[in-house]
Every structure is written in structure tokens, then in C-alpha cells.
């Protein structure tokens, strides 16, 4: 039986594309924001396109903050994508300071135009991901070759407090930012694997293995 993965529907993001990528990768999905569905799923995907503040407001209004944290602490595989990755961190400076889920230590910052050498914000397009301290074998990047280009669309990036959670970094205008993380059962990418062509689909395939092994 293929594992059942819940794609969290909190009004932010390209759920349909993520669902399609999951189905392509033999992950059975359910799109929901109901606590009982979350509890009974084998894994959770946090999608996200849009603003951090609005996302946290929606999660708060749906009363989902605690249930998400519980899943994370109970070792359920979680995949955060783009804004969904940023939400895992402690806080964001988007529209003033906004508190996040706090599952990974660090904060979300806006690109500093000087540090990225006057490159454009948002960072939109295909950029390479390269290794940091983690080996990729044990992560959802297992089948990805180093320097593979992935699709990014974002104005903010995460600054992880603990370098060891960083799976990959990406260079934008001479500035290296964290482009994916893995901390135990938590996996997350700043890029959009569901929009990165066949290479991106390999990440869903690996996530599917993670869920089955769990």
C-alpha cells in the first residue's frame, strides 16, 4: 500500500502541482486541514507560496500550530517547500517580525541587495544546489547530482542557526544561502521540487522512500 501523505491546505500555495508530483512518485495524497486527517496521515507536506505573515495567520486561525508541531515531534516525515520551509523556522522579518513554527532554529531574512551584488529580488529562476556539511545519501537529495539546477522563486531565505541542518546551499549574486535542510524527520527545500522538472520529481521519489521506511 502506498503511504498516505497529507498536503496541508491552509490557503497558501500551489497544492495541485504538489499533489500531481506526489502522484507521479507513488505517494498517495490527501489534501486537508482537518486535525483528524493530519493525525492519521503517514507524512505531511507544507506547501507555500505567498507571505509568511499571512501563512502564520491562516495556520493560527485554523488552529493548526500545535498539531503540526506534534507531528514533527512524533517523528512523522514532513516536507516543507519554499514558504513551507521558512515556516519551520523560529521567526521571519517579512512585514515586521512574525513568529514561525520554531521546529528548526534560525530566522527568515530578506535578501540584502548589497550582499547579492545588486542582483534582482525576488530571486526567480534556475540555480544550482551544492553540498554543505551533510551527506546527501541520507536525505531526499540522494538521487540528485551536485550542482543540479532547481527552480527558485523567493525574496526571503533562511539563516539556520545550526549549520549541520543545512543539506544544500545555493549561490545568488555571490551570496550563499541555505537552499534545503534536513533535521531528523524534517525535510525542506527553498526551491520548488514540484517545478524543477524530472530532477525535482526524484526528490518526491526519495520522500516516498522516507515515508515507507518510517
Amino acid at each position, binding site marked *: 500500500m502506498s503511504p498516505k501523505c497529507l498536503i496541508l491546505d491552509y490557503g497558501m500555495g500551489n497544492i495541485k502541482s504538489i499533489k500531481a508530483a506526489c502522484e507521479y512518485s507513488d505517494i498517495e495524497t490527501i489534501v486537508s486541514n482537518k486535525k483528524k486527517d493530519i493525525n492519521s496521515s503517514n507524512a505531511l507536506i507544507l506547501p507555500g507560496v505567498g507571505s509568511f505573515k*499571512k501563512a502564520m495567520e491562516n495556520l493560527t486561525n485554523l488552529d493548526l500550530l500545535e498539531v503540526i508541531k506534534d507531528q514533527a515531534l512524533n517523528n512523522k516525515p514532513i516536507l516543507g517547500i519554499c514558504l513551507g520551509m521558512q515556516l519551520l523556522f523560529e521567526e521571519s522579518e517579512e512585514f515586521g517580525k512574525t513568529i514561525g513554527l520554531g521546529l528548526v532554529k534560525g530566522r527568515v531574512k530578506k535578501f540584502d541587495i548589497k550582499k547579492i551584488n545588486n542582483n534582482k529580488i525576488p530571486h*526567480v529562476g534556475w540555480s544550482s544546489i551544492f553540498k554543505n556539511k551533510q551527506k546527501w545519501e541520507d536525505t531526499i537529495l540522494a538521487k540528485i547530482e551536485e550542482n543540479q*539546477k532547481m*527552480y527558485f522563486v*523567493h525574496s526571503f531565505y533562511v539563516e539556520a542557526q545550526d549549520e549541520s541542518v543545512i543539506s544544500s546551499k545555493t549561490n545568488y549574486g555571490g551570496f550563499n544561502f541555505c537552499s534545503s535542510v534536513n533535521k531528523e524527520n524534517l525535510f525542506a527545500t527553498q526551491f520548488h521540487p514540484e517545478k524543477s522538472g524530472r530532477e525535482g520529481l526524484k526528490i518526491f521519489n526519495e520522500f516516498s522512500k522516507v515515508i515507507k521506511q518510517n
Partner: protein
Amino acid sequence: MTKKFKRVIARLDVKGPNVVKGVQMEGLRVLGQPEEFAEYYYNQNADEIIFSDIVASLYGRNNLIDVVSKTAKNIFIPLIVGGGIRTLKDIYDLLRAGADKISLNSAAIKNPKFIQEAVKEFGSSTITISVEVNFLNNKYEIFYNNGREPANIDLNEWINECQDRGAGEILLSAIHKDGTGKGYDTNLIDQVKEIVYIPLIVQGGAGSIKDIEHVSNYEIDGIVLSSALHYTKILQDDNVYREGSLEGNKEFLKSKKNFLNFEKLNIEMIKKAVSNL
């Protein structure tokens, strides 16, 4: 110096159930089915696909929800959708259907505040502003309603206004070059790149590898192609024309002729030409 990476984007103009293409936005020819074209370019490793409902502004609605919905099941690259998008609900519905970015033109010109409302709701990077420019009486003029109505606003002022209101990207189209295969209007690109600080993608005029090599020396973030790709596809694909499956002016498609000014181009060749691969 290595050139900056540039996205190669295939654009599909959609009218009713068909992909169409004209010259200078007029004289539309029916070319095939949107889902099939999109899949073809995905398989060729396009970086993005644009769907534009070119009659939507006229009829006051976007008909692409179904096309986007079907396409998003099989295609895992970004989809930009434009044409007749007027409300936050329109944007929400298209994003739910599988669009990644929304391109606005007429609605933004009629009500520039809509840009920032959309940006606030969906994030800057979701909102592309399509700026359609014609070169008339020795100056650049902005048009909307798919090239039909002059906006009577200054090009530089409009680009700045879009940026100030938080737009995430500018899609700059040269109507006078559209579908001609006679090369990009690099004067236009020069003028805009002086003031643009958000990503800039350009469209209109690509006919040969030379055109593409030339434009790739400019500080742009991507190039958008339609005719140059479509005509190559049609020539290669004997099955593209299916009697009965397409409505409209099919004479062009049947004739398989008259691709004036167009070299046979595919996405791989174009990617090499733009990025020094």
C-alpha cells in the same frame, strides 16, 4: 565572461480550445491543442511555460482553468497564466488549478492598485506584469486588451509604477516584432533595462539562433518564444493537425508552408545559445 543564466520560456497563446499565433497580434492561425504543446515543450526541457488567454480581456473572463488544471498533472515546470484576470478570486482560482505565476496587463493598467493588492495577497514573485509595447510614430506606446487599446502612459513611468507597487517580474513584449521572426527590438530592451530592478523577460521577434545569441548579451532574465518554437514543432509533427479536433482557421496548419523568417529552432539549441553551455 560567462553570461548570466537565462530562462527559456515557451509561450502558448490560447483562444478557446486552441493554441493560436498571429503576426503582430493579428491574423490568428490555429496551431494545435494547448496541453499537447505544453507537454512537448516540457519534454524538451523548457524552463517555464506561459499560457495566455488572448480573448479573455475582451470577454471579461479567463478560460484557462481547465487547460491549467490538465497541464499541471503532467508538467513539472512553472506555469505562468495570463489574460483577462481581474480579481483576487481569479488569481486564487488559477493558482489553485496549478498556475505558479499570474501575468496581469489590462487589469493593472485600468487599476494600478490591483498590482499591490495582488502582491500583498499572493506574494511579489507570483505577480508578473505583462507590458505590451508597440512602436508607433517613432515612439513606444503601451497597449492593453491584447494589443487593441492604447494605454496612453509613458513606458518608463509605467515600468517604475509596476515595480513600486511590488510586481515580481516584467514580461516585455514588442507587438511590432510579434510573430515576425525579424529579431528582437533591442532598443526597447535597452531603454527598459536602464530602470528595471526586478526580473525582466522579453518577447517578440525571435526567428533565428543569431537573434537569440544577440539578445542574450543583454541583461535580461529570460526569453520568451512562441512562433519560432511552434513552427518548428508543426513541421516536425505530422500528427499535429487532426481533422475535427480543432476549430477556427486551419488553412495555415494544413498548408505547412510560409514560415517566413524562421529557422528551425528547438529549446535545446536555444538554451545553448543563451547560456554559453
